């Protein structure tokens, strides 16, 4: 009797990496939403800062999870992530330009910049991981 191998349809398991990155994106949107909802008036910053902190912790968790993943197609991960990074750099660069151009200064500018930086790190990781996880 010959056992035919099961056809491989990619990694179908739920991944904590994806969960962490989606959590980060939602936290960033909530943090930015609090500031945007109050523009041009002053926003209560504690809410935004709390969500940014949650996003930062989730980002660190994501990096640790990716570093600990074995086996993992790192080459594929970086091949995708570097081009996505370039695209998100243009996107976040435009965002930062518009926010600064409109005269946002002080704490809101710092928080918005951190949010954009978190996006800049997380989206390339998400897209790179989404491709690399299916490699055998």
């Amino acid at each position: 009797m010959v056992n035919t191998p099961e056809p491989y349809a990619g990694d179908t398991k739920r991944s904590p990496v994806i969960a962490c990155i989606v959590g980060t994106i939602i936290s960033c949107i909530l943090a930015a939403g609090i500031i945007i909802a109050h523009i041009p008036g002053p926003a209560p910053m504690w809410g935004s800062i709390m969500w940014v902190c949650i996003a930062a912790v989730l980002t660190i968790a994501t990096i640790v999870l990716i570093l600990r993943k074995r086996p993992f197609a790192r080459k594929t991960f970086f091949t995708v992530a570097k081009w996505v990074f370039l695209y998100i750099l243009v996107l976040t660069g435009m965002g930062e330009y518009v926010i600064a151009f409109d005269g946002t200064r002080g704490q809101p500018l710092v928080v918005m910049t951190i949010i954009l930086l978190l996006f800049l790190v997380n989206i390339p990781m998400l897209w790179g991981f989404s491709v690399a996880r299916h490699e055998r």
Partner: protein
Amino acid sequence: MSQVVGSQAIATTPKAKAGPFVPLWGVAVSGAVIVALIVTIASNSHFGLDFFHVFGGALWVTIDLFMGFIIGPIMGRLDIPARMVFSKNLMTKMMVVMPTVVICTLTSGWQLARLDNLFTTPYSPQHGWILAALIVVAFLAIIAYAFLEPANIVVLMELRKPEPNGLLIGRMMRRFLYTAGVLGILQLSIIVIMVRLATW
């Protein structure tokens, strides 16, 4: 059965060719459009911002609806080899078009709302509608960045391999088409919000 289909797909699909991931002429056009957008924002041109927002928004909504409700069902009925060839040609161009359209629509829309004082406090009557638009855009962003684009890239990367995995491509294309449909429905709500704002 699906394994047989996958093997047939691999056998009948043209071998992957090494080359740029996306069309380079498209990247050049995209760069020129973004430079024009920066100049428009810097000059605070109301006409220019309106043009970028309406043109970009119309393209974005139309492409999402067309992909979700017209191309999606058609692709679902194609056999896997045809679907792979079609995906390869379509997705490489979409990788250039969609990011440019999204950047133009969102950035010019934000600036327009600022110029038209739609963010001012005490709250204008339109403020709630602007917030509604931002909330829908937030959902669009989460779905697009977390589910739709990764599926798109997995398909593109797989199609560049000498022996693409038909099963994986099929699974990812299903995900791509479902999420495109959800985005299409969200886009309909954006149309309602934008028409309400434009006819206030």
